Structures are given as structure tokens and as C-alpha cells.
């Protein structure tokens, strides 16, 4: 089920990793995912230094390993299936490597979003020069997402309560009408919510509690991480 508290719930733990600037965390996560994607290739052993890195980060963010693993669960069946297919065309080594890469990437993203309040994440993206429009859009989608998903839930309940069934054509048409209604509800909701925001002093940019800034710890962390990741990539190439 869609649930923002589920996403934000670990960002308030007061651990070293949580205290880093969001930009730093985003850069490190991106570096991790990209360098791993390029350097690991088809050999599963090369994943080792990257796994160590994730374990380290998870440790300094005091995330419970069980919680982390549980959050990867929804994605796993798909990874398994895709690796299986890959196994037939490219061999088992490549399949295992791809599975591990997919798994570790997801893990790193989960660590990122669960250690950073979503509003800070957005600030970070903004700081990294992602277009302002895109960032505001993401922040709005995040606001509305859960509401609108639930709204469709209500429509579905109304449909089911009145014995929805019948021919496929009728079902498509009805589902189409539900989607249209969802659109109208969303649109009007957007309009009204905008009024509500304006009524409470919104003037075009979303402000958040707490400010962040790059301090020395951030610079040291980002440098060490990238040096580690790069050399991990290069060394594992030579050795593994």
C-alpha cells in the first residue's frame, strides 16, 4: 500500500549518515549505482567491494538490516525473473551479477530515501541543478500521490459495491469512466488544494523546516566515498 510514513520513517534517526547534506547523499548514491553498473560487468565477484560499501553506509545510518531487506522484497521477484532469462542467454555468471547489481542498486536507493526526509531530498535535487519545474513537480506529486491513489480506491469500492462485472467492453468503458472521474476529481482537488495552500501563505515555492549546508564532514565523506568506489571498480577489474 502507498504510504509516505513508511518512506520517511527512518529519516529522523539521529545517526551520522542522516546528518549529512542531502546533496552529498544523492551524489554518493548516484556514484555508487553508476560506477557499479559500469565496472561490475558480468562477474559476480566484483560486487564484493560494493556490498561492503552498502553495509558500511547502512551501519552508520543505524538502519535495521531486516527493515532494509523487507523493503527490497517487492522488487525481488522481478529481478529473479529477469536474471533467469538473462541466465539462458548470457550464462549463469552474468545472471548472478545482474541480480546482485539490481539488488544492491535498489538497496542503495532505499538507504538514501529512508535516511533523508523527502523535503530535504528535494532540496538536494534542487541544489544539484535539477530543473526547478521538475523538483516542484516531484514535490507536488509526492503530496498528492497518496491522496489520489486512495481516491481511486474509493471509486473502486463504489463500483464493487454495485456488482461491477459483465462484458469486457462494458468493463473497459466503466474503467475508462472511472479514470475520467479520477482525472476530474484530481483536477478539482488540485484547484481547491491550491486555494488551501495559498490561504496558508504559499507563494510559489515550498519551504521546509530546517536548513542544510555543506560542512567539512560532508566534503570528506563525499571524497572518500568516491575515491573508494572508483578504486573498488578499478581494482576489482584487475583482480577479480
Amino acid at each position, binding site marked *: *500500500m502507498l*504510504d509516505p510514513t513508511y518512506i520517511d520513517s527512518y529519516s529522523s534517526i539521529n545517526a551520522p549518515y542522516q546528518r549529512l547534506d542531502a546533496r552529498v547523499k544523492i551524489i554518493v548514491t548516484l556514484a555508487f549505482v553508476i560506477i557499479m553498473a559500469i565496472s561490475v560487468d558480468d562477474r559476480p565477484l566484483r560486487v564484493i567491494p560494493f556490498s561492503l560499501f552498502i553495509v558500511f553506509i547502512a551501519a552508520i545510518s543505524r538502519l535495521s538490516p531486516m527493515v532494509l531487506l523487507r523493503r527490497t522484497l517487492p522488487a525481488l521477484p522481478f529481478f529473479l525473473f529477469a536474471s533467469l532469462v538473462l541466465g539462458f542467454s548470457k550464462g549463469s555468471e552474468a545472471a548472478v551479477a545482474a541480480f546482485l547489481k539490481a539488488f544492491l542498486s535498489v538497496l542503495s536507493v532505499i538507504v538514501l530515501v529512508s535516511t533523508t526526509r523527502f523535503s530535504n531530498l528535494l532540496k538536494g535535487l534542487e541544489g544539484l541543478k535539477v530543473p526547478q519545474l521538475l523538483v516542484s513537480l516531484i514535490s507536488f506529486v509526492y503530496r498528492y500521490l497518496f491522496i489520489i491513489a486512495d*481516491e481511486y480506491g*474509493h*471509486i473502486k*469500492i*463504489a*463500483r*464493487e*459495491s*454495485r*456488482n*461491477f*462485472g*459483465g462484458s469486457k467492453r*462494458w468493463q473497459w468503458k*466503466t474503467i475508462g*469512466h*472511472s479514470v*475520467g*472521474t479520477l482525472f*476530474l*476529481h484530481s483536477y*478539482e482537488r488540485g484547484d481547491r488544494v491550491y486555494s488551501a495552500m495559498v490561504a496558508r501563505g504559499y507563494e510559489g515555492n515550498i519551504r521546509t523546516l530546517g536548513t542544510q549546508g555543506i560542512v567539512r564532514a560532508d566534503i570528506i565523506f563525499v571524497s572518500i566515498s568516491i575515491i573508494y568506489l572508483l578504486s573498488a571498480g578499478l581494482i576489482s577489474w584487475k583482480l577479480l
Partner: protein
Amino acid sequence: METVIEIKELTYLYPTGNKALDNLNLNVSQGERIAVVGPNGAGKSTFILHLNGILNGDGHITVMGMAMEKGNLPRIRQKVGIVFQDPDHQLFSPTVFDDVAFGPINLGFSEKEVKERVREALEEVGLRGFEERLPHRLSFGEKRRVSIASVLSMSPSILVLDEPSSSLDPRSRRELINLLKGFDITQIIVTHDLEMALELCKRVVVMDRGAIVADGEISNIFGNEALMLEHGLEVPHSIRFTHFHTHDHKGEEEEHCHAHCHPHPEAHEHKERI
């Protein structure tokens, strides 16, 4: 009288872990009109969603002899018509006609029969001529009527309404009351409008924290001030004054004096939270 709804030990937890229903038991007889009252968050709306199998808590529910099981759902949903708390959650078709016709079409009626049912249902809620209007562009009270019509058109044997009078102006509320009075099918009416409950129902069920804490004759329960206050309710004005005039309750002399001196019930208020 024949029992049409039988609920035994119903418990429901929302996926977030909130226990919304907690070992709830209830029997409803054929033709009864029952009011369900209780504080905000008591679990009333959650309870209602169990009556046609939208939510599935632990426990046993039997509706008109049918157990609440997947195979029986279509027939149960045909019997139990639910009007939701928010009409915007109920209306999803391009026109009023389509919305009222939705149920009958799904029940497989012929086109002629469907049209006939829509006409009748709209007539009953006083919305003839609204067929081609967009449900979206109606006033709140009109939307409420359309949602009632869209349930009536299925001719349910059991009508369940969640807060039907809220946000209606006094005249529309009165019309609603008269409408409901005119039906002799089984009705379950969830409401915070105690005066309406009093006008419509002989029996009331008080819910709190997911369970039924009182169930009985409505003027007895509504007249029990301690009980009412304990569960976020108040003794309604009209009972206060009925007591005053008829003296059919004992030991309430002081109470009456109160009512006389302070026509507003705030005097009996416990003000814990503010």
C-alpha cells in the same frame, strides 16, 4: 422477527495497524430501522464496509442467510445498498442517468427495465429531469440524493446510509427524513444527527473504539446522560424537553431544572480536552 443481518465477533485492523473494529456483535431483524451512533473514529464507516464484503475482517457475517463468502458476494451486494459518507466517493459516471443505471445494468436487467428503475429512483429522491446532468456539477445536497438514487435503483432489501444528513440544509434534511420514513425495507443509519436518529429509529446502537457499547430502545439510551457523555454524545434537545413535559423518567428532577434554566446543554458538559 426474521434476522437479516447477523454479525459475530467481527474484528478488523487497517493495514497500518489501527484496530478499527474490535469483537463486534450485532443482529438486525427484517424491516428494522436502526441508528448507529458514536464518536468520530469509533469505526462506524469501517463497520459499514463489512456489510457487503468490501472489507474483510475476522469474524462471521451472515446476510439474509448467506455467509459472507466470495461466492455469495454478488447476491449479497444486490441485497445490501450502501450510501457512502462522501457522495464524491460514490459517483463516477458521466451523467446522473449512467450513475443510477450502473447497478441495474450490472444486475443484468433489460434496457427497458433499467430505464424504468432509473426513472423511479430519481423520482423518489426528487431529481426527475436531472438525468443528463453531470454528477460533478451538482450541489452537495443534490449529489447526496443521486447517491441515494443510485442505490435505490438496485431495489436493495437492506439500505445502509453513512451520515446521510451531514451538510444538508435543514429543508433537505427534512425531505431526507421523510423519504427514509417512507421506505419499509431494513435500514441502518449511521449518523451524528441524534435528532434525526430519534425521529427515524426505534432502536439505536452505540459504537465506541470498534465495539458496540449499548444497544436498545432509542429514547432510553439517548436519555441516559452518563452513557451518552461517556461516548462522545449528548442528550438531544428534544428528549430533554420531552422529559420535561411528560415526566416519564424518574429521578431526573434536577436534570429538568437544568433544562429549564439553561436551554443549552453546555451545562452538562465535561470539558476534558479543551
